[in-house]
């Protein structure tokens, strides 16, 4: 397998000279094509910041991030939008759907931004909606459907353009456990059947147990790394809990 994403010694500071927050303090790791990577850590450990840096939504203070050997920290401001729409897919905790568009249009939106031909858009939209089980609600507006359905719509939007990597920030954060499980199964399918590379930030061990590899962050540093390998999910889940116990502090919050 090829290395898709390479994060090389990145740091991210917030604040001024007198009061610096080291949100990320020297993180390096690699993601291979087809992996489903989880990033775990307590609240405030730097997960979102890391994801935003990879997503080119935020700039690193130092270090480099390579996607397919291209240094994305060096991309010029005017080329960033193009890079994002061609390479990245997003799933956010609060869905980030547009209230004014129907579910179908929300999915199609990313394709129109990528200037795909109109016929192709329609075909792809319906195809992905079927795969994610939301073809019945295509003509509804976001406020008319449940959170789980919204998040599936967001997932459809993230994958419909076949991005190199899908970035998900606490996608199950606003969902009940049943919807969360449904979503995770879908993401697993996206990863296994559609060969999507996914990088998911979460602080929920159940969500993390769907991943193939997990990085644990603490105070902006990588604290630990585990891989699922051929293990059962249940077993992997227990392993995650063990690491979290080691991480200490707010494991109660995590469960």
């Amino acid at each position, binding site marked *: 397998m090829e290395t898709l994403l390479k994060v090389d010694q990145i740091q991210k500071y917030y604040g001024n000279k007198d009061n610096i927050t080291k949100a990320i303090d020297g993180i390096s790791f690699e993601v291979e094509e087809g992996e489903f990577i989880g990033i775990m850590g307590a609240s405030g450990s730097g997960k979102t910041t890391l994801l935003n840096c990879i*997503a080119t*939504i935020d700039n690193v203070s130092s270090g480099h991030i390579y996607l397919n050997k291209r240094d994305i920290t060096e991309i010029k401001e*005017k080329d960033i*939008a*193009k*890079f*994002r*729409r*061609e390479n*990245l897919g*997003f799933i956010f905790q609060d869905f*980030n*759907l*547009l*209230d*004014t*568009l129907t579910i179908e*249009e929300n999915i*199609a*939106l*990313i*394709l*129109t*931004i*990528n*200037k*795909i031909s*109109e*016929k192709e*858009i*329609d075909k792809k939209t319906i195809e992905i909606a079927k795969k994610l089980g939301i073809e019945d609600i295509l003509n509804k*507006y*976001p*406020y008319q459907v449940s959170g789980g359905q919204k998040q599936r719509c967001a997932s459809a*939007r993230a994958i419909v353009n076949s991005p190199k990597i899908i970035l998900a920030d606490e996608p199950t954060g606003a969902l009940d456990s049943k919807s969360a499980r449904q979503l995770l199964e879908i993401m697993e399918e996206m990863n296994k059947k559609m060969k999507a590379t996914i990088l998911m930030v979460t602080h929920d061990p159940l969500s993390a147990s769907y991943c193939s590899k997990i990085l644990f962050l603490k105070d902006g540093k990588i604290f630990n790394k585990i891989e699922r390998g051929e293990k059962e999910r249940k077993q992997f889940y227990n392993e995650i809990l063990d690491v979290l116990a080691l991480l200490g502090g707010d494991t109660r919050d995590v469960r």
Partner: protein
Amino acid sequence: MLGKLSIRNAKRQAKDYIIYFITVAISVALMFSFNSIAVSEDISDLSTMLKDFSKYITGISVAIILIMAWLINYTMKFMLEKRSKEFGTYQILGLEKKDIANIFTLENMVIGILAFVIGIGLGVFLYQILTSIIMNLFNQPYQIGITFSLEAVGKTAVFFFITFILVLWNCRRKIKKTKVYDLLYAEKKNENNIIKNIKGNAIIFILSLILMIGGLVIANGEVDKINANEKADYIVPAIIMLIIGVFLFYKGITSFLVKRYLDNKSRKYKKNNMFLYRNLTSKINTMTITISITALMFMLIFIGGNIALLYNNMLNNEIEMSFPFEILIQSNDDDFTKYKEYIEENAQVKNMYEYRIYYINNTGIANALKDTNFRNVASYGYDSVLSLTDYNKLREMVGADKIELQDNEVVVNTLKTVKGNVEEYANKSNSLQIADRNMKIKGIEDENIGQVSFNGDYYAIIVPDSLIEEISKEDEIVRNENERLSGKGYIYKLVVETEETTSEEFYEGLEDCMDKEERQVTEVVNGEEITYTIEVEDERVEVKGARTSQTRSMYTIVSFLAFYLALIFVMATATLLAIQQLSDSEKYKYRYDILQKLGMDKKDINKMILKQILFYFAIPMIIPIFIGIPTTLIVSRTVLSAITIEEVIRNIGIIFGIFILVYGIYFIATYIQFDRNIEEKR
């Protein structure tokens, strides 16, 4: 407790409240400054010659109150919608609807009172500017200073608080009626479900076209009636048809566009159409109403402004036609010495000429005017006659060539606008019976020598000098109207051309030269003979300079008021569009943020913002242009006897230019601010 909560929340929404506050304060300022003008002595002194002045003022006051009421109503409802989620949350926390309504009322009362005070302050300032502009227009000295009319404050307070309380009361009712769910989700809800119910939007669209065209056709017919001095009963229905037509048109066109762009996937997915149209249609009901009201306002401004300009042109043309020379004097006395002395002393004479106008029995030419606005001439029973020598001299004074006549020939000189009619008549009956002689009409001239009732009513017959003696005896001076109507005799005329135009004081001095004769009049009232004396002016003095300045000042004040009103209209509606766009920009910011995260180019985002704002500002203009132009043309037909079509078109251009300027400034400002709001912290 409630008060504290409410103040804290008001602070949090300060940005929206500032817009709201400014709108209300500006409304108060506009209303107050106008009321101040209405009660100001400076202004009313100026307008003594304007008999309908108070009528105009009242009319405009009413219009301003309506606009302000609309603006306040709109902004308050807007604030209510903005805070609906917060109010919903309160309700979930267990607050009574009544308490929430009280919070809202309290906040608004505080804001209303503050805005009123600030608005009055602003209004004092605005009034000073307006007054000095008006005084400047009339060349009157005016000292800017703080004048403050309690009457105007009182009036403004009454108007404002009545409106304010009514609107507030309406909002309270709304709060009490609305369900929690609707409050919580008001912001997220889209209004486009309505569209789906309108299956027959094509029918609505066609109906609107029928109504508008029908209204125009009827109006056109009514103008014919007005021209023919008949009663025009269908003007109001025609206007109502136009108004309903405009509303339906906008209802129809929005759903038409939505259908066209959103029901067809290949169109929808093209470029960034989808996002843009959904943005626009998510508020379709609000939008339709705002747009059609805006459109109606613009139509009013457009048509009103055009009519004002048309009448100005007409007045100017009328003056030009009535006054080929600076001074016109008519007398039944051939002694003009007093006048001449005065004129020579007070003005620089270029040319001066004395002559006579003779009256003869109606020759039938008047019948030529049967189909014109001047048809009543036919009943006068006399025609006016000028000798060839006098006519040629007058022609020379206005810069035209001499003409010649055979002994049996005459020429008819007419007002430009009726020349065609007289020519048509002369083609049919080519000869006239004058003093028992058969005279041939040699031709029709239209030299402007004062054909509006000075040298004949709309036309005069020019005869060879030899014929004059047969027409009139030396002693047949016309002494009064009855003698003239009998169609014989003559009267003395003096016309003077001066180097420069004269003033009103000059005119007053000239009037004092007139002979005023005391005459005994005997009348039989209830079988009793009563004799009394009246002062009769047998002479007539008219001066172009004085008339011009009177007309000017009347026109200036009317057009100033009209302009003021139009400006308020444009500003009110443009403010409204701007408010709607800008205070929604937070919502839009969220949407555009998502687009940017998804990888849309900044350039494309800016283009979309421009398109969106352009749509809001441009759509309301469509109908006013398409209806305003034909309406102006129709209205101008009532005055076409005094104005050319080129002038009408020029007027349309001027009105349109001013309008575009003010509106354009608003548009650009809105776009820049909107872009800035979106850009903020992105």
